[in-house]
């Protein structure tokens, strides 16, 4: 039997264009760009790529959300925080190295253009919102967009440049370090506050709440839970991008499943890597997570 050695489309050896350490502004964070035309061609906001940290280790792949694409040049950008061995190994990749990447994977955000959009981002949940924002703005439908960013401390607020490139200033909420935040972000932010990101709901305009803005959120689970709760109470549609430990990333192992409500109030499980990572918040059983 002769079998052609076909090229697999979604698993790619991608050349690293750059892998920039964002210290000192944002210590521990890296912006990685790779040459991946297939991914750039096919990616949607909210989707992720599944990166093999190193061909010389046994580690499982690590999922990182797509932050931007340039379909002309075939370049894909992600931004990640080094928190353990996997991201540490990824941070060691240098320009010219090849990274083994599968993508784009998962279901992204719905692009809803006939309602105002409010984007909530926390920590490394912020980068994928830059991609979402670009899609909303590029839709040419004149969607009104507000961006609200939150973090424990000012240095974890990232991607401001990327938002200002698109001409939008975010509202920023930090849990501590207000004075420093004001100094850092003064001219790049619409407003800077001390408090939890959910305080922003008190500041939403009538037009945003009454005309039924769509809330998009990406960040740590406690933040998503709180944003979902507030949004749903106001009767707003809310889409959250969830994180979980992944193994295959392809929907095969059922390891990444999270509890989702049935119509009858019972729950079933859906895969973060396949049905997600973006879920309609009203379906997610946050109390079971």
């Amino acid at each position: 039997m002769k079998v052609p050695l076909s090229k697999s489309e979604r698993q790619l050896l991608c050349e690293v264009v750059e892998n920039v350490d964002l210290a000192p502004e944002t210590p521990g964070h890296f912006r990685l760009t790779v040459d991946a035309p297939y991914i750039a061609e096919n990616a949607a906001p909210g989707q992720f790529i599944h990166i093999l940290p190193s061909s010389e280790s046994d580690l499982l792949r690590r999922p990182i959300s797509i932050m931007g694409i340039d379909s002309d040049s075939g370049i894909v950008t992600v931004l990640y925080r080094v928190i353990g061995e996997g991201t540490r190994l990824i941070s060691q990749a240098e320009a010219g190295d090849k990274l083994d990447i599968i993508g784009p994977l998962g279901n992204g955000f719905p692009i809803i253009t006939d309602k105002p959009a409010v984007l909530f981002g926390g920590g490394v949940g912020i980068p994928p919102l830059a991609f979402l924002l670009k899609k909303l703005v590029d839709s040419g439908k004149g969607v009104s967009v507000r961006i609200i960013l939150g973090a424990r401390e000012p240095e974890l607020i990232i991607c401001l440049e990327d938002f200002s490139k698109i001409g939008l200033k975010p509202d920023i909420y930090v849990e501590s370090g207000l004075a420093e935040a004001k100094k850092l972000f003064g001219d790049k932010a619409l407003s800077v506050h001390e408090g939890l990101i959910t305080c922003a709901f008190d500041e939403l305009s009538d037009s945003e709440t009454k005309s039924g803005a769509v809330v998009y959120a990406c960040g740590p689970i406690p933040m998503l839970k709180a944003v979902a709760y507030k949004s749903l109470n106001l009767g707003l549609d809310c889409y959250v991008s969830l994180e979980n430990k992944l193994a295959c990333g392809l929907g095969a192992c059922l390891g990444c499943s999270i509890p989702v409500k049935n119509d009858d109030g019972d729950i079933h499980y859906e895969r973060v890597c396949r049905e997600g990572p973006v879920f309609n918040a009203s379906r997610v059983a946050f109390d079971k997570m």
Partner: protein
Amino acid sequence: MWQSRDNIYIIVSYRITMDADLSKLESNLGPLALKTPLIAASGTFGYGPEFENVTDLHFFGAITLKAVSLEPRPGNPYPRIVETPSGMLNCIGLENPGVDIFLSEKLPEACKYGIPLIANLVGDRIEDYRKLAEILDRESCLAALEINASCPNVDHGFLTFGANSAILGELVKSVREVTSIPLIAKLSPNVTDIVPLAKAARNAGADILNLSNTFLGMSICIDSRKSRLSRDYAGLSGRAIRPIALRIAHQVASSLEIPIIGTGGIYETTDALEFFIAGASAVSLGTVNFVHPNRAKDICLGILEYLDRKNTTLDRLIGSYEGPHACETF
């Protein structure tokens, strides 16, 4: 470098011709004739389509589908997986949509690849397995049925069927009575001596043994002092278990006549070769699919290169273990 030098060499050399002659990899697994001796392990490969455009599926001689039960099973709560040194723990809990959806949706999708499929059967009672086998016996694209008597992640798992020779024998016999499809018994390694269980399964009519399922393990978060998973114990897979799985395959192969599928931590060509030498007629790839979804291709090419280099055949390799290392000089 994990990948052997041989492996790299062979990939390069076969790329030049852009196709590979896999006929030397044809292998007989008892009643099953496989195009390659590599099988995708149940629960690690979904139903096949998940790996489309990522994996060259034709390097697998067969694909074992995710476990199927009579009724849908929701699976275990979140979280279900945690990575551990050179492997992972899982407590998926046999989540599956039940046999009706398996037949109406999953199987037709998997069939279209033209690769022999193996259904992995689970149940709470012997009657469940028997009924499943009766239903699946009619499916022409199933090449074999695998009795999963070994899942560590459900309350009725291996303790009921996998750890007691008499009950295992009864289970296999009951399924054997209702089907003529090749029957695989997948055993649990979580026993003191697996040989009596292997004998019981064979004597009750199993054609093939799959050795083995995951090893019970545990992982504790030292801050919360809780398990990192939604159960106390979960199944360990991946490189970490390979030497133990290899020992088990060899113990059974050297104690009784029955074709064996070696399973556990196979990541490289050399791993697969060790299992063949120990007596396995085929091997399955599980956790490696998550890391290197196209590893079946590399391993097929690596085996071909080894057979060429050693001027031997797969048949001759199987069970050719030469015994303990005799150290002649110090």
